[in-house]
């Protein structure tokens, strides 16, 4: 039985309902305010092509993308190199945005994220796509575009399962969708992810100033 009744002793301030109600309101309001302020700042930083350089402009797909160790930050960061247009076409910022956009829409429409991860978010049945463009699995930079196109065109015939038996179902991409997806992956690889995934080693890249693709 609970013996406390109407004649219970006065409560200390720290045990009172009123104090904690005020506390809950104040803490919630304050934290929400801080979050909103940080959000305003973050949104300007992660604008594509903003000065902060963390999220590249979509026209980055016109360039070579390297991945080099940054002594000061102590992890590797994407480095934008000289022109190396995707599919041999230099695109304007708007054309590039539309191509990447088509790729992102396609990745969402085919529900890629429920097998793969993008920036580490998604499902864990298939490899992370954050640095897909730079993955050493493509052999070298000159073969990459052809191999990626061939794989996405028929992932079952070109499956490499590394002994897991896990194959990618055929997403039946149109040619425009396929190009969009590759553009989207190329753009994604140039996002500065604070060194995620850990210790990633890109495919062999010569000196970045050397041109090529």
């Amino acid at each position: 039985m609970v013996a406390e009744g109407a004649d219970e002793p006065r409560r200390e301030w720290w045990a009172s309902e009123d104090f904690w109600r005020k506390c809950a309101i104040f803490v919630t309001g304050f934290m929400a305010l801080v979050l909103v302020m940080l959000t305003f700042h973050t949104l300007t930083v992660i604008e594509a092509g903003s000065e902060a350089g963390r999220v590249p402009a979509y026209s980055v797909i016109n360039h070579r993308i390297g991945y080099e160790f940054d002594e000061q930050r102590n992890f590797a960061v994407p480095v934008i190199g000289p022109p190396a247009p995707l599919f041999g076409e230099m695109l304007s910022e708007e054309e590039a945005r539309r191509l990447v956009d088509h790729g992102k829409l396609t990745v969402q429409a085919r529900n890629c994220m429920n097998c793969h991860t993008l920036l580490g978010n998604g499902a864990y049945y298939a490899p992370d796509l954050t640095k897909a463009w730079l993955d050493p699995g493509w052999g070298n930079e000159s073969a990459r575009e052809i191999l990626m196109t061939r794989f996405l065109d028929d992932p079952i015939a070109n499956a490499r399962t590394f002994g897991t038996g896990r194959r990618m179902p055929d997403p039946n991409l149109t040619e425009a969708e396929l190009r969009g997806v590759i553009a989207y992956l190329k753009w994604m690889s140039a996002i500065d992810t604070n060194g995620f995934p850990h210790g990633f080693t890109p495919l062999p890249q010569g000196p970045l100033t050397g041109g090529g693709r």
Partner: protein
Amino acid sequence: MTFGRLEFASLRIGQKLAVHYFAVAMVLFLAQMLFGLLAAWQFLDPAFLFGVLDFNVNRMVHINAMVVWMLYGFIGSIYWLVEDEAGVPLVGPRIAKAAFWVFTVAVTIVVVVYLFVQSGPGDAWTLWLINEGREYIEAPRWADIGIVVCMLAIFYNVAGTFLAGRWSGISGVLVLDLVALAGLYLAGMFYTTNLPMDQYWWWWVIHLWVEATWEVLVGCIMAWGLIKTLGARRRIVTTWLYIEVALMFGSGILGLGHHYFWIGTPEYWLGVGGFFSALEPIPLVAMVVHAVYDAGRHAFRANNHPALAWLIAHAFGNFLGAGVWGFMQTLPQINLYTHGTQWSSSHGHLAFFGAYVTIIVAMIYVAVQRLRGNVWMSAGLQGGWRWKWALGLTHLGMMGMTVALLIAGYEQSFVERAIGGSTWQAYFEGQTQPWFVEAMWWRMAFGVLMTFGVVLLLWDLVRIGVGEKRPMKVVGGLDDVEETGSGPVPEGSAAG
């Protein structure tokens, strides 16, 4: 009232609605289990249903069924307590009923489209009609709008009923929390090309639901549940609720930053997210202390043993699954290796189960007791083995899966990230290691075990109290009957 018989007709309007919501929730729970088993089996035999029901479809239905059935469970719980707490009947029963049917028909259509259409061309129409392709909130845009409309109808009923009746600490927190919960969903309802921008707002929905507003919502349900099952004193549970809100929002709102380590967002999130999310277990400890203290204070004399057992399971499960398993990988120094591996899967399984499955099941037991005419559900319950075995099997199954996935996650972060250099080759090396493969078999086995537990649980929910002739045990001291606030509505279970 007849003990042990179905007393549906004598329920209040909100309670009848709650029974509807609970019934759909349990059907979806079973669906979640079945699609989880299919996806788990595909890890072991990737050719299984390849090209028919691929992993991404099964996994999407698995997690979406979960999100939706938990929402059903929460809405059911709120409808169950709202009239009791406000002391007046529901203000808009017709709108509330319409919202239930609209919501349920919408969910059915979404699932049918997921299973039979699966995906569409890479344009905006697919996002509007088939699938948005964003984990957890894949529901197409038309359904998003439908969900918002239903939520407004529910909110109108909940807030309106409290306005028409009386307010309490629990209802005040509940209504404000629902405003935040519904408002946050809007953050997930737009499309942008910019992936970091996309994921920034996406986490506002996922994190600020699961690690903030849902937690506060279950805090309200827990407070009400302890008053009802134990006769705990209202002033004590309300004070605890405020403490939990302060701690939960104090840590959880900026704890959002632990999702902003690696998505292109500025480096200050490493510090902000790491620090505040490391504090997130503290409110969960408070909830354990609170629940166990109250239960002990009342010497575990409860009028509903299964409900109290699941409430206690909630307190510990929330702390262990959300708190400990979350803390294990929340610091950026660790998360760099574990983000996007089976660690997350391990944490996700135990956290959703411990924090949310448990408390919804507890509320359903509270409802079932009333549905059977406020029948005896304390010691010596007829057929009491069923709820105990269901509790044991589900928990054993879930813990087994969690530990198996954690071992897989350790192995994956070690082989793929720490040694392998995070390439695709390294990923597959991790996936083929014997430790990983064996862990996936264990996960499968424990998943089957848990499914048996869930089936037994559903059977028990349908059968418990049948044939029982004793009335519900009276709980709480006579001197605090007034404070337990069962209100003017006569059926209040703690009124003695």
